[in-house]
Each structure stands twice: as C-alpha cells, then as structure tokens.
C-alpha cells in the first residue's frame, strides 16, 4: 500500500513533465499541422544553455529564464529558416526534414560538449517527504507539479481568453478565412512554434535532474512517451494531452516499480499500439484528425 502511494505520487510528477511535453507537441500540431519529430533535439539545446548559464552565474532561476528564451528563439528560427521551406506536396517531407534536423542537432551537441552525461542538480531536495510514515513525493516533484500547473494554466488562458489566442486558433483551423479577415497566418504559425519549443524546453529542463543527467539524447524517451500521450489524447486536444500525459506517467511509474525499469518502454509501446488500433484518432479528439 505504501509502495503504491509512493509510486502513484512520483508517477504524477513524472506525468506532469510528460503532459507538458505532450502539450508542446499538441501546440505545434495545432499551429502547423505537423508532428514535430525534432522536438526532443530542439528541447535539449536550451537545456544546455540553462546548464551553462547556471554554471556561470550560480542561479538556477536565471538558467531557467535563459532556457525559455533560447527555446522560444530556436522555435522561431527553425520555423522561419527551415520548416517554412519544406515542400507541401508530400506529407512525409516535414518528418524527413525533422529527422535530418535531429541528426544535425544531436551530433552537433555531442561534438561541442562531448558525449558524456553531465550531472544536473535540482533546485530543491529530491528526497521524498514522509507524511504519517508514508513516503510521498519530494519537494522537487512538488515544484515540478506546480510549474506544470502554472504553465498549463497560462497556456489555457492565452488560447482561450486572449485575442492573440483566438487568432492563433483561427489561423490553425481555417487559414484561408483567417487570412481574409486580416489574421497574419504565417506569423501565427511562427508564434506556435515559439510557444511549443519553449514549453518543450521547460519540460526537458524539469526532467533532466531526475534522470542520468544531460546528454544529447536526454529527451529521446521523453519524446516517445509524450508522443504516445499526445496520440492517446488526440493530437488536437490540449486537455487530452494533459490527461493522457498524467496517465502514461503513472503507468510508467507503476510498471517500473512493480516489474522493472526495462519493462516501461515496452508497456508504453503496447499501450500506444492498442490505442492506435482501436481509436487511431485518440480518445479525446473532437473530430476526425486530418490526413497526414
């Protein structure tokens, strides 16, 4: 019982990171109608920036701010410089270009910083708090949950309550009509990439202290799990990404705790396969996913 409570609470914290990353995939899918296979590599670059800044100044928070800025800039540069130029006649071209980008970024990082894991320290203790003799989540896990909740709330407010969010949604759903009504659609797509990569960078930064450390492939498994979560939730649905992200996180935590860490990736793979075969458009998608 105590073990179950501990696994559930840590799973929730891991799930919050997953949900955040899945949300970043949903944002870019809604803005540009692409599944960004380069998300993991793009998210790791700002984490290197954060680690460098934290090492230079000693402040975790300054590193965090720099990571968000770097992520936003990177998103804009990649969209303007690369993704915009991908031929639209072949739906696979975007995926293949993203794969090329992954290879360039990860190999570039390994050349620049070496292939070793760099330890990254969390700003709070990672020792679990005990309540009434039962081990629960650590202060760092609480911090992760809090940050994830704040960011998701902010994104929900942006998309749901502001004029900018309305324009972004309109540009994603009906580009031609929005253009006629005076929305600058290309700018909205760039903004979607900016938000998406900044969110992904934040998720990767929150993840790294709980793992082996920072290396160019640090976010690969996170991407695969978040992709599974985003697909299960329906690529179009932020609420779905949130729910599915938390569920996948808890599932992975339970499988790791009761079976072994090696059993978690096959379990996620099995879940993804079942959902794709039964409901290819996800459990939460309101309408048919678009072709390709």
């Amino acid at each position, binding site marked *: 019982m105590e073990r179950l409570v501990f696994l559930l609470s840590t799973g929730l914290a891991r799930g919050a990171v997953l949900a955040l990353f899945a949300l970043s995939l949903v944002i870019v899918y809604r803005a540009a109608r*692409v*599944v960004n*296979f380069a998300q993991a590599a793009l998210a790791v670059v700002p984490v290197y920036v954060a680690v460098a800044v934290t090492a230079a100044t000693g402040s975790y928070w300054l590193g965090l701010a720099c990571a968000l800025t770097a992520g936003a800039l990177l998103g804009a540069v990649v969209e303007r410089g*690369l993704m915009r*130029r*991908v*031929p639209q006649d*072949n*739906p*696979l*071209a975007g*995926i*293949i*270009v993203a*794969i*090329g*980008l*992954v*290879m*360039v*970024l*990860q*190999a*570039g990082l*390994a*050349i620049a910083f*070496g*292939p070793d894991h760099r330890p990254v320290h969390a700003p709070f203790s990672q020792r679990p708090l005990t309540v009434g003799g039962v081990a629960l989540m650590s202060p760092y896990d609480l911090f992760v949950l809090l940050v994830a909740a704040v960011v998701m709330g902010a994104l929900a407010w942006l998309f749901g309550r502001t004029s900018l969010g309305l324009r972004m949604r309109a540009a994603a759903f009906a580009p031609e009509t929005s253009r006629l009504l005076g929305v600058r659609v290309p700018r909205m797509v760039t903004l979607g990439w900016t938000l998406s990569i900044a969110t992904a960078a934040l998720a990767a930064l929150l993840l790294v202290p709980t793992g082996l450390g920072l290396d160019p492939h640090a976010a*690969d*498994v996170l991407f*695969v799990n978040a*992709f*599974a979560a985003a*697909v299960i939730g329906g690529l179009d649905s932020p609420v779905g990404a949130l729910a599915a992200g938390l569920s996948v996180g808890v599932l992975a935590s339970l499988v790791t705790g009761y079976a*072994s*860490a*090696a*059993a*978690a*990736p*096959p379990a*996620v*793979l099995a879940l*993804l*396969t079942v959902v*794709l*075969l039964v409901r*290819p458009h996800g459990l939460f998608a309101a309408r048919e996913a678009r*072709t*390709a």
Partner: protein
Amino acid sequence: MRLLTRAALLTLLALGATFLLDPYRNYQLATATGTFVAVAGLTLLVGLTGQLSLGHAVLMAAGGYGYAWAATWVATAVEGTTLADGAGGWLLPLLAGVAGAVVVAGLLGLLLGLAAARLRGPYLAGLTLALVIALPAAASTIPGLNGEQGVRAPFVPVPDPLALLIATEQWHAWLAILVAACAVTPLVAVRAGRAGLRMRAVHDDETAARLAGVDPGRVKAGAFVLSALAAGLGGAVLAIVTQQVSPGAYGLGFSLLLVVAAVVGGLGSLGGAAIGAVLVTLLPWVVDQATAALPADLGHRLQGNLEIALFGVVVIVVTLLRPGGLARLLPAKARSATSLPAKFFPTQ
C-alpha cells in the same frame, strides 16, 4: 525473363568485383550489401505507398535473431551426423538461418503491417519510433534475446574447394551478394508489376483506388510485410558477416541511417538504395580515417558524430532542393524505364 537475365548478370558482375578488393574492402562490401537489402525494402515502402517506417532497424534485428536461432539450432542438430560431412555442415545451418530470418521478420512485419494498414504518416512513424526505443529494453526482458550481449550466429567457413582461392571475407561477400540477389530481384518485379501499380494508386488517392477495386488496407499491409522481409534478409546478411546480433547495433541511430540512405538515393528507387547503402557504410569509415589524424580530444568528439551531422545536412538539403535524390541525377533515358504510369498507360 529479361529481369532474371539482368539480375544474373549484375550478380555475376558483383561476384567478380570481389576479386578486385582486399579482405577489408570485401567485409565493407558485405556490410553495405546487407544494408542495401534493408534500404531497398524501406525505399519501396516509403516511395511507393508513402508509409514512413523509422523502425526498420528492429526488423533487421528480428531477421538477425531469427537467423542466429535457426542456424545455431540446425548446426547443433546436424553435428556428429553424416549430414555434417562435406557441404552440409555449413550449408544446412545457413539455409535454415535464412529461412528463420524470413519467418521471424515476416511475423513482426505482419503485426506492424496490420497497424500500418490503419495508420497515416506521422502515426506510423511514431509507432515505429517507439518500437526502436523499446528494443534494448525488450532484449533484456524477452528470454532468448540475451540482453545487451546479444546472440552469437554460427560462423560460415569457406567450403574446401574454394578455400585455396578466396579468403573468408570474400566468401562472406559472395554469400551477401547471393542473398541480396534473391531478396532484391522480387522487389524489382513487384515494383514494375501490378502490385507496384496498386501501391502507387493507394499512395496517390485512396478513395480513387478503392473505387477501382483496390483494397488500400491490404495493399499497405502487404507492402509493409514485403519491406519487412527484405529488412529481415538484410539483418541475416549482417549476422552472417559479423556472427553476432545485439540490440546495440540496431539502435535509433542505425534506423535513421536507413532512412537517410533511402532519402539520399531517392525514395522508391532501388538503384538509389544501393548508392545510399554504400554511402552510409563508407562515409563513417572515411570520417574515422580523417579524424584519426586530428588531436585525440577533438578526434574523439568528432568520431561517430561528424558523419551523423553531415548526413543530417544532406537529408535536409535533398528533401528541400532535390526530392528525387541521387537517382534523379541519372540520365533521363535510364529513368524513363522506371516510370510506371508511362508503361501501363502509354501516351498517344
């Protein structure tokens, strides 16, 4: 008939070419040939049906494991019996191994193909990506895969009559070329035949294909199985050459390299697949040679990474500027033979 003659001629040419190479080059040729078989399957899948698989390395690994299991089993079974005398001692395990590779890769391909029949681009790519990421974990949980160490495949010695004439590496290159010939010739036939036309029809417009009496699900699943069989045979070739199958050799990096080879060569082009396979086998070696001259620290960092970065740049440039790949650089006459619609619906 023309196809078979051409295949036989090309095979003989390739076998003859092995005499011009030293043992290490022959080893590289054998590796490139194994990669070529897998890339040929992948390029057919992506180019003709528009299904992108990022997990073909896992299908190669499945073929390799299938080869190692079946070959080891038969080798121990015939040992000490009269069958082990003469050619049977190496031929029977080899044939059993190739059959094992076909069965195991085919079964996994069928499972994935059933999923592929229902999925579109990014969904299938994501599913196969999850498969590659799960391979090392699966290898340590499934009994018989023997974790990170992997499985040994029996050594295929040079048969006695040839032992004086050729070295082991050249013999393995011959085996690789023969397996490749048996694997790729059917692919060429499929590509040029009705099945290839159906695949293109499904790729171009599923609704129109359905109206014309083509079942898109079956065509997609069939294409995936075919491609998986080729990948499995490619894995068998690598198992023959390296006598070893381990999950580390078939990771995400290798899987992406297969995609790179298919894209660079030109999606859908089997000749392009050969160019791409040679490129992804040789470029890492060239880069290693070049970086060995650099100072140790820098060389260590560049090793294994510089070629990946180069491949990434090449893939992006090819996709943005020249979607036809290197195969499109061939003269127009060579290309027109591969244009299917022109063959089936001749213009006035």
